[in-house]
């Protein structure tokens, strides 16, 4: 077999894992500040995919242009979800928030069933099948766009967290909520912002999904699980780590699907997940500090 195939699989894996990565960054922000395992993340991804689908089919708005509409809308939805659903129970134990996320997931899934029907949808743009050649490798246009979007997303989130005052407050809260409150940080505001960004990133992942895959109302859960695996691989508290975790998961799945079968790919990614949880719970790229065990 040609050695080129290994590189091609690697590229496919990276591009594939990008999607998990974007979802995982959102999860890491939400988990980092509020210790909420946000199961509905994947469902928000699919909701955004439907939004892009609907805008494209009804108003002929290009999916990459619809980013400008969908992401701000999801920011608001995210902040609103925090204020209505999680504000009251943010201080309760972790599994009440887990159950609320689950309830939200069921609610949204079935909302999408009613509004968009259970049919599997795919966004058929004129350029969906385009691919370009780079150093002799075939690279899909929509997937590399997803990769570029992910890089922009990471850049924006990193600048936000490092340079802005509220971003610094988010980081402070994720390291220690009590001390952050002591120095006068408004926890609810920080949490809303973290939630808004988390859901905003879900929207971006959703548009990337809409342009590359077929999806249905119930596709979200698998994305949540994959994003969680990515998060566990990369470390619960690191934005870049979460993204790298997603990419690593994509690479693992790409190689296993090719050499064994795609059925085993999922199985092996869960086994890797369990082992990482057991033996390196701070993640492969995470720092020990700040991770609560």
């Amino acid at each position: 077999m040609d050695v080129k195939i290994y590189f091609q699989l690697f590229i496919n894996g990276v591009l594939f894992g990008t999607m998990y990565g974007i979802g995982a960054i959102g999860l890491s922000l939400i988990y980092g500040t509020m210790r909420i395992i946000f199961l509905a993340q994947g469902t928000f991804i699919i909701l955004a995919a439907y939004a892009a689908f609907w805008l494209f089919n009804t108003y002929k708005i290009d999916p990459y242009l619809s980013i400008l509409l969908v992401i701000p809308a999801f920011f608001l939805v995210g902040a609103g979800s925090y204020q209505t659903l999680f504000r009251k129970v943010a201080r309760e134990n972790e599994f009440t928030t887990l159950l609320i996320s689950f309830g939200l997931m069921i609610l949204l899934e079935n909302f999408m069933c009613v509004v968009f029907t259970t049919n599997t949808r795919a966004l058929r743009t004129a350029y969906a099948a385009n691919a370009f050649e780079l150093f002799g490798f075939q690279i899909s246009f929509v997937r590399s766009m997803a990769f570029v979007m992910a890089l922009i997303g990471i850049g924006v989130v990193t600048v936000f967290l490092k340079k802005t005052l509220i971003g610094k407050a988010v980081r402070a809260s994720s390291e220690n909520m009590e001390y952050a409150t002591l120095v006068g940080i408004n926890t609810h505001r920080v949490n809303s912002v973290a939630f808004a960004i988390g859901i905003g990133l879900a929207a971006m992942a959703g548009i990337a999904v809409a342009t590359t895959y077929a999806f249905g109302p119930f596709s979200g859960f698998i994305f949540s699980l994959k994003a969680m695996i990515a998060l566990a691989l990369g470390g619960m508290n690191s934005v870049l780590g979460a993204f790298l975790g997603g990419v690593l998961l994509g690479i693992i799945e790409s190689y296993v699907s090719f050499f064994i079968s795609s059925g085993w790919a999922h199985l092996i990614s869960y086994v890797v997940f369990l082992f990482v949880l057991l033996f390196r719970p701070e993640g492969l790229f995470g720092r020990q500090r700040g991770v609560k065990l």
Partner: protein
Amino acid sequence: MRNRRLLFGVILILFFVVLPLFLDLENSYLLYFLFMTFIYVALTQAWNLVGGYTGQVTLGLHAFFGLGGYIIGILWSRGVIGYLDSIGMVVAGASAALLATVVGIPLLSKLKGDYFALGTLGLGEILRLATIQGGTLTGGPTGIMLPSSHFTNIAPHYFIALFIAIVAIAVTYVVSKSRLGLALVLIRDAESAASASGINILKIKVFVFAISAFIAGLCGTVQAYYLFNVEPQGYYNLNWTIYPVLMCIMGGAGTVAGPVVGAFLLSAAFEIATYYLPDIHLMFSGLFIILTIIFMPKGIIGSGEDWKRLIGLTVK
């Protein structure tokens, strides 16, 4: 007080035992509803032992439920056991308990809180995917069809489910009144204090995890005997974990009666929603979950004091 509660329980059981005499065994929807509710009562108690009393939030109940069902499917389709075979059911439950022990030792010793929840969630997914890849042993994605010609009516399933539910309640009751129960609650509320007072935390956690798995496995066997087929999506379905968790929280986690109340109320609510709002009943369920958790985080039984205050029994 305690005698009165016991008497109430016995009367309730007698009621459910004689009820089928007055109903049409062939088509009674009520019997089917009660059958499913008994299964949920047992599953909810199984979760209550680990999640409610010991405070270890497991999201892997469906792994043991599915395993129980599949062991019946595999053994029965190969003629090793027969229809409604009690030995087969115990073997299936014991296998689930064995799996819980083997998996529980690393998971419970290393993972706490959210991480344990995620780990158990992963376990269910691993079993589901392994079953799909299982080839002729598990029948792959379509599963195994079982000889349905044995079916006469729902009565045997009804009584077995009732029996399992009673056993699950009795186990929870006995545990909650024993030294073991005290140890569980201490592990939940102050793990380091439990460890300091000489409790072997890991041993107790794994033991309770195994009991819970045994009950969940039994529930899976009844489902297999009732549906006459086993398949990965239906048996390793996360709903078998999430509904019991919800019922437990709604009724009151860490109480004996809470899960029973929660299971009955929620099953009834879901049935009513399915009947009156056929298109959107799952949306309704999702909303119901959110509202319950936000407004009644301690559950119906757990909020006893709040109820009394509400109707003016106790002065604040």
